[in-house]
């Protein structure tokens, strides 16, 4: 069986090799992320069956935990790794045709680093190491947002950078406090004796960590960077940001709350936070004229929904939350890619500029439609089982509070439907019936292939959700009973 | 059994036609007398019909002919459902509701026939006819519902029989108001003044009949005669307790008819919206009150 550390090493190593390849050929460099992530995908797929029976943990340099740094490839980690590899892989294909600037190697290096960071975050078992990888992720995404080098890109990158810096500093303080109290940085170790300490002195680091990671995870008051960053980044990067970066931030929060602190009592707070985030995201998106901003706001909403689902705290709740997370990753990445190419063609991010796209770019608009329906949660697409599971989990609590929250969520769903259907109508039905300028210009294959792989996944998982429910359940159980997690690492 | 039914049917149709024409003639005679004129002979409508059948006529097409036949058939069929004295050939199909529905075939047929005439006078007349029908249906429905709820049946024969046991409907307080309401709307049903706005000769040149000539006019006259008979005998059956034998029944409807002749002779004409406003105000209020009373006092049967 392969070593999960390869998942980190391959992209990291290749990232630094990219400049060297330039000396060989300029053509080749764009293919490096492709191969790296293909490898990652294969590795994570091969690891996947082993993980299901027993989490793998690798200790770097032979030092056993709690002393050394260790990687823990649990079901959750592998799930995320797989997701990251998959989305990264497909987006790297998309980038072939999409990234046309002079010095592409910048893009590819940063891209690989971003994914390295993400993978590292989800695989590491050490809190400080997590922070390091998190920083890699953040910094590379700051610079990728500004990749085009135009004014809005740089401006939003700076905004992102400032908020991210505040967040990271909070995280660092939190970790420092934890280290001061427990004298260890290994998560399992901290987790094992978290309850032995006076509560308030543990609460402060918890709060700091939640806030810090919350910035990246775009929870309500901390998500101000997101619309600007997503709308001004290259579409491929927007897809990665809202498909992966946010989810990784969320992963960090979940890991901290469930595994590290076992803080089931703060979930009530997160519950409301999630619903508020959802409502605000959808309301902001409702009247948006700029397509990418609209998608960004809808990502905020989706994150809110996921947070809500995860903080129900029951097994089915977390299950549904993770499913929704997967579905959001796939659908939103698809939406950003499709929209990105339509923007590329129409030359404007304004929704009204998409009129008649259904005739011009039939395949891309079809894909966009599927993505939109899936986000709104219509069967037979992947969004529907997710929403279904979440509502099921919420209503199984048999609690009036949950019923009210469910109604709020559904209100948000209606709003979401409203603006997505508006865009679909604009694509297909607005504009004159057949103006002469409407000859088809099919998108290049390197755009259509990833897009349609996404479509395929969305439809297949939507029709046959059992494809992923198994791993989701094991990941949910991993989150819930932290005792096993600790036992696995500290025998 | 079937033989008797058929005989009854023929008897009723002939009798109704004769009585209807007699009423038409009578109306012209009495009107003349009220105007201090000598007036035509009572047989004048018959003479007109004979003449009209011997005249040439112009037709506008298939529907123009079909509509007339349709409407006349509708009015004739209603006769078979109305108890005339004790005679009621088709008592066991649907009762009052079917009568209600069949009574709308006649105006519908005329409307269709007049519609193909492609003459705006006709169309205006039809629009007025339908509007007036809509106007008087509101109180009429309330009245009929009151009666049906009071006797808790939809069969008109049963209503008549129950009146034989318990006296005329007029004697029940709860049916008094609806009866009055019916009297108030009966001119509208008959198309008499002050509701003679459907065929206002000076205004829209006899409305739906503007294009009729010869036999078409004759058939409409006959249909009008049947219509008079039907609506008056419906009132008689519902409120004046029907009758044991045809003669007695005839006297009753004669009495009711003559009352309206006086109204017809002295009143001017409503405009259509005035007519609707009137119909939807007093008769409807009375009928509504009657329905409320019936619901409060509960069924008597």
């Amino acid at each position, binding site marked *: 069986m392969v070593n999960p550390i390869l998942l980190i090493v391959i992209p990291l190593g290749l990232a630094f090799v990219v400049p060297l390849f330039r000396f060989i050929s300029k053509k080749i460099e764009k293919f490096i992320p492709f191969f790296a992530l293909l490898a990652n995908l294969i590795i994570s797929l091969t690891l996947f069956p082993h993980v299901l029976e027993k989490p793998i943990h690798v200790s770097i340099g032979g030092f056993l935990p709690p002393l050394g740094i260790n990687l823990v490839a649990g079901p959750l980690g592998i799930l995320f790794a797989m997701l990251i590899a998959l989305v990264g892989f497909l987006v790297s294909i998309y980038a072939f045709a999409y990234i046309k600037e002079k010095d592409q190697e910048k893009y590819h290096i940063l891209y690989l680093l971003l994914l390295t960071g993400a993978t590292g975050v989800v695989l590491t078992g050490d809190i400080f190491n997590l922070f390091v990888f998190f920083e890699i992720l953040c910094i590379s995404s700051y610079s990728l947002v500004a990749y085009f080098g135009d004014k809005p890109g740089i401006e939003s990158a700076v905004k992102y950078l400032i908020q991210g810096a505040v967040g990271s500093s909070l995280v660092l303080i939190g970790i420092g406090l934890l280290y001061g109290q427990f004298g260890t940085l290994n998560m399992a170790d901290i987790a094992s004796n978290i309850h032995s300490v006076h509560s308030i002195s543990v609460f402060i680091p918890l709060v700091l960590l939640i806030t810090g990671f919350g910035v990246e995870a775009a929870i309500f008051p901390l998500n101000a960077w997101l619309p600007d960053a997503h709308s001004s980044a290259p579409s491929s990067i927007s897809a990665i940001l809202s498909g992966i970066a946010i989810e990784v931030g969320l992963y960090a929060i979940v890991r901290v709350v469930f595994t590290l602190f076992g803080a089931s009592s703060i979930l009530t707070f997160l519950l409301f936070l999630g619903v508020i985030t959802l409502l605000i995201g959808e309301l902001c998106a409702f009247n948006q004229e700029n397509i990418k901003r609209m998608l960004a706001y809808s990502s905020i909403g989706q994150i809110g929904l996921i947070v809500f689902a995860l903080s129900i705290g029951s097994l089915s709740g977390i299950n549904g939350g993770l499913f929704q997370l997967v579905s959001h990753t796939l659908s939103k990445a698809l939406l950003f890619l499709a929209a990105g190419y339509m923007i590329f063609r129409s030359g404007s991010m304004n929704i009204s500029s998409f009129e008649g796209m259904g005739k011009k770019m039939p395949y891309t608009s079809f894909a966009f439609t599927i993505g939109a329906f899936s986000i709104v949660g219509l069967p037979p697409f992947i969004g529907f089982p997710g929403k279904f599971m979440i509502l099921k989990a919420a209503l199984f609590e048999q609690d009036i509070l949950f019923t009210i929250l469910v109604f709020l969520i559904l209100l948000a769903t209606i709003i979401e439907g409203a603006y997505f259907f508006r865009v679909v109508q604009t694509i297909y039905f607005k504009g004159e019936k057949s103006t002469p300028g409407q000859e088809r210009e099919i998108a290049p294959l390197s755009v259509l292939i990833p897009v349609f792989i996404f479509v395929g996944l969305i439809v297949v998982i939507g029709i046959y959700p059992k494809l992923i429910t198994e791993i989701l359940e094991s990941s949910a159980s991993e989150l819930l009973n932290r005792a096993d997690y600790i036992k696995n690492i500290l025998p | 059994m079937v033989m008797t039914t058929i005989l009854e049917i023929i008897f009723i149709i002939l009798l109704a036609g004769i009585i209807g024409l007699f009423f038409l003639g009578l109306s*012209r005679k009495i009107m*003349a007398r009220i*105007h*201090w*004129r*000598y*007036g*035509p*002979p009572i047989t*004048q409508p018959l*003479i*007109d019909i*004979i*003449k*009209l*059948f*011997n*005249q*040439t*006529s*112009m037709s506008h097409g298939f529907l123009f002919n079909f509509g007339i036949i349709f409407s006349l058939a509708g009015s004739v069929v209603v006769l078979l459902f109305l108890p005339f004295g004790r005679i009621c050939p088709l008592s066991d199909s649907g009762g009052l509701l079917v009568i209600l529905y069949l009574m709308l075939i006649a105006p519908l047929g005329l409307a269709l026939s007049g519609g193909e005439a492609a003459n705006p*006078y006709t169309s205006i007349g039809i629009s007025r006819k339908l509007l007036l029908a809509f106007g008087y249906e509101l109180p009429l429905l309330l009245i009929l519902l009151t009666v049906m709820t009071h006797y808790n049946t939809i069969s008109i024969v049963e209503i008549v029989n129950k009146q034989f046991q318990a006296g005329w409907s007029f004697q029940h307080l709860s049916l008094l108001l609806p009866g009055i309401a019916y009297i108030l709307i009966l001119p509208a049903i008959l198309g008499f003044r002050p509701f003679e706005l459907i065929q206002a*000769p*000076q205004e829209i*040149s*006899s409305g739906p*009949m*503007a*294009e*009729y*000539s*010869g036999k078409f*006019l004759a058939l409409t006259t006959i249909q009008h005669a049947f219509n008079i008979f039907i609506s008056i005998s419906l009132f008689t059956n519902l409120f004046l307790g029907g009758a044991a034998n045809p003669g007695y029944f005839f006297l009753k409807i004669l009495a009711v008819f003559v009352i309206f002749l006086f109204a017809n002779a002295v009143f001017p004409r409503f405009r259509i919206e005035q007519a609707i406003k009137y119909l939807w105000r007093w008769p409807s209020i009375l009928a509504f009150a009657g329905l409320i009373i019936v619901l409060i006092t509960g069924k008597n049967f």
Partner: protein
Amino acid sequence: MDRNNLGKWLKSPGKMGQKYSLHALYFCTGCGIIEIPPSITTRWDAERFGVIPVATPRQANLFLITGYVSVKTLRYIIRSYEQMPEPKFTVGFGSCPINGGMYWDSYNTIKHLDKYIPVDGWIAGCMPRPEAVFVAVTHLWTLIDKGMADGYNKYRANYQYYRENQEKILGKLEWPPLFSKNIKHEEYRTIA
């Protein structure tokens, strides 16, 4: 007056019907119409003879040309006459329809109405009183009895003649000819 003679009714119902239900076209051509209201109302009550005014030519079989006929009204008279169902009877009321009367030298009054539509009877006088109307009606009865009130047949037979006269004075008529029967110019003299 044989209105109540049942035998005649059975023998020729059509003719009797035409006699005793004359529906007059309620059509005012000229001043003569002033005599119609008294004749149909209380004082002289035309309805007792079965004469009542009706609204449209379709329902009428008696056409009273009441008063002078100007060129303008002639068009409407012809149109109304042609729209009446047969059998139909025309009565010129007053001297103007007969020969122009006091308008004998007017440039736009029709002097000889019977050149344009057949006229079954004339009521002379200016104005004839309502009694005269009833006299005309009774005469019309006798004509109907004898079968001499056949103006509509004349019109049918000599349609081309009438049409020519009409078009001579009115110019091209916008409605198509009523009868397509084509009679040569000599024949009508013999018929008429």
